[in-house]
């Protein structure tokens, strides 16, 4: 679990997860597009994310595709969120989302 928190404690790595969340299954080239990071830096960050099992890769034809693996984050949630809090938290999350959407 330490590895998950360490991997998440970096804005660049979180932005890579955001990109995969928006579109799952990307190649390294696709992930690098439009980022202010060198390819080398992206590769390094992806290795840390993979080590923490937050990103997983598969071979698809000749390409290596990167996927967001949400299971470690889900398991962190399961550890601290109590059963009966879940509904309330989902409602609060939705409230925040709706209110903030209006300001856009």
């Amino acid at each position, binding site marked *: 679990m330490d590895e998950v928190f360490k991997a998440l404690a970096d804005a660049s790595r979180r932005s890579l997860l955001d990109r995969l969340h928006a579109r799952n299954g990307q190649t390294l080239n696709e992930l690098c597009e439009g980022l202010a990071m060198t390819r080398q830096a992206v590769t390094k960050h992806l290795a840390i994310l993979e080590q923490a*099992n937050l990103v997983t890769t*598969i071979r698809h034809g000749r390409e290596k595709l990167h996927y967001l*693996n*949400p299971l470690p984050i889900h*398991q962190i949630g*399961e550890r601290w969120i109590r059963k009966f809090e879940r509904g309330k938290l989902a409602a609060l999350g939705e409230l925040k989302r709706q209110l903030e959407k209006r300001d856009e």
Partner: protein
Amino acid sequence: MSKPEFVYVTYIETTPEKLWEALTAGDFTERYWFGVRLRSDWKVGSSFEMVHGDGSVSDAGKVVEYDPPKRLAYTFVNLSETYRNDIPALATFDLEPHGKLVKLTLTHEGFAEGGKMLPAISQGWPAILSSLKSMLETGQPLEIPRAAIKPEG
């Protein structure tokens, strides 16, 4: 060949044989899968169904691969009206032993364009796989209320 929509990986402290049983035996699945029993004779090409406590079948498809304790694959689609524009998508489970752990990789692919299965599935699998891991490692599945993972919208 389209690419898989999801790839989930979890490491479980168990043996491939126990994990295989947990993935295929109805007595096991109903403990961690919202009470769902998987029903099939597990022959390639045979029918595959998700059966609920009241005997109703929510999802159905076919067995595509059965190679214990390494690889299991089946298709399924929800049978309700909500999912009328969906087609059976393929779920593949790969089991790989690594010392005391088994690496379980689930890939899911072949969803209908604009269908409703995809968002529903992306909410469901993390909960099911976390509960499976918990059950095999501690003997206790996670109790997740079904309502908590309803897809948005």
